[in-house]
């Protein structure tokens, strides 16, 4: 169907609409309503804009579809619909072009000073780096990337197990996420205790302390 769409055939376009129009409208409405958007015109504009994006540059965006992927084109269309809606909402909230604003040098210097990490923040970053190295050691090689991402989403970004499980890429149920985090936490605690007993200071990276 994609190949036919790319050739601009009207029947293929009808087929595309039959399959994806509901998905696009539903994604726009759900995303927009969550942000208390608008009126009917906004939604209509958004749906039109999504079709423009999908068709732009000879359907370039649809060429991103990985045919071996179970979500395939459905996920891609949902992603385009959601991101277009979010961009639209952000534009509505910030109608002025920030690049035209002028910022005083004093204000900029003040902001930069605020961005400089404090001593406590530096210690925190060093601890995170150490934990990250330890995660690479304690997680199984075939799942280390997923496990590490789940750990940081939970402990640094405050995601719940349910929110992590809702991400298809994780491939875990809520119970699975909870179990994973429990196992990692226990392993990290054990490793940290062992390091402390060996007398390594907290700032020493785990990899440097290995025999």
């Amino acid at each position, binding site marked *: *169907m994609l190949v036919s769409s790319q*050739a*601009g*055939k*009207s*029947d293929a376009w*009808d087929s595309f*609409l039959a*399959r*994806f*129009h*509901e998905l696009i*409208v*539903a*994604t726009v*409405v*759900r*995303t927009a*309503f*969550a942000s208390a958007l608008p009126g009917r015109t906004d*939604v*209509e504009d958004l*749906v*039109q804009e999504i*079709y*423009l994006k999908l*068709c*732009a540059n*000879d*359907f370039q965006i649809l060429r*991103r579809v*990985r045919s071996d992927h*179970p*979500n395939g084109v*459905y*996920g*891609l269309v*949902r*992603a*385009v619909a*959601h*991101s277009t809606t*979010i*961009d639209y909402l*952000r534009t509505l909230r910030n109608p002025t072009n920030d690049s035209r604003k002028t910022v005083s040098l004093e204000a900029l210097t003040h902001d930069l000073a605020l961005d400089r990490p404090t001593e406590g923040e530096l210690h925190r970053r060093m601890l995170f780096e150490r934990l990250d190295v330890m995660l690479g050691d304690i997680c199984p090689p075939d799942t280390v*990337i997923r496990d*590490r*991402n789940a750990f*940081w989403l939970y402990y*640094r*970004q*405050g*995601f719940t197990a349910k*929110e992590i499980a*809702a*991400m*298809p*890429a994780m491939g875990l*149920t*809520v119970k699975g996420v909870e179990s994973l985090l429990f196992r990692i936490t226990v392993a990290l605690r054990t490793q940290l205790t062992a390091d402390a007993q060996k007398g390594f200071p907290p700032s020493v990276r785990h990899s440097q302390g290995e025999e």
Partner: protein
Amino acid sequence: MGIGTKPGCLSTFDIAGIATDILSPHEMHTALSHVGDCGVCAEALRQATLDLDREFTANEIEVIAEYLKHRPAMPASAAKPRPAAWWPAAAAAALLLVSAGVWFFAFPGDSVPELLAQASASARPFESRLPDAPYGRAQVQRGEEANPPAALLKAQAELAKRAAAGERSVDLLRLQAWSELLSHQVGTAVRTLEEARRLAPNNLDVLSILGAAYAAGTEAGSEAGFSSSIDLLSQVLQQRPTDRAALYNRGLAHFRLGQSPAAVADWEALLKVETDPGWAEEVRLLLAQAKSR
């Protein structure tokens, strides 16, 4: 458009790509690593996951149904210069939409199970067979177009009203999961059914559709889902040995796991009790495949 202001901050498309699982493994790893380190992108991902995963409200369903009455034309920038050929197609599409609209409002007294059965009969989005659903051709395997949304939308609106009224019954959860499965939300359906199972661990109707959902969610090749499906459906068949959906789905799970003799046994047992010619025909085809292995 970038979400945050830090170097490497993700675009809104990347964020949605994580939530919809369309990124390559490398892209996913890079994106999630950044999210783990960036509060702004993390919050955007949290919102995107919520947006794309949550249930529709009754109001949203009504709004969606309203918008679906209008279909856009292909953007001029993308269409080939064949203007004359568009009018018949547009007229046919308009006729189809009017018919769909009439159909949508023609059955105000239909129950939710009846509406869901109607939607299931249009086309099923996976190989699994849903309990109480009449035969519908598998959309995934045979490339059939999406089923008309009216019956499903109407069922979802009814379910949303019942939920909004405070109903939290096992039956409601089962019907919600059925509608989620028809909406390609297999993961959400499994979670809904696990909740129903927690409330009623021995409810055979719940176990049967949960078995179907696990099989539907693992068509990409994972074995764990099929094993779970077999365990659940075996519990059902111990007490309801002629449960047609359970026999069909357990046979399918066995077949996908390469256990052809077990699949043949289930499907032959099913053919003895099957009354729907559509399902019977499909089972015969599957049986032929299983026996040829």
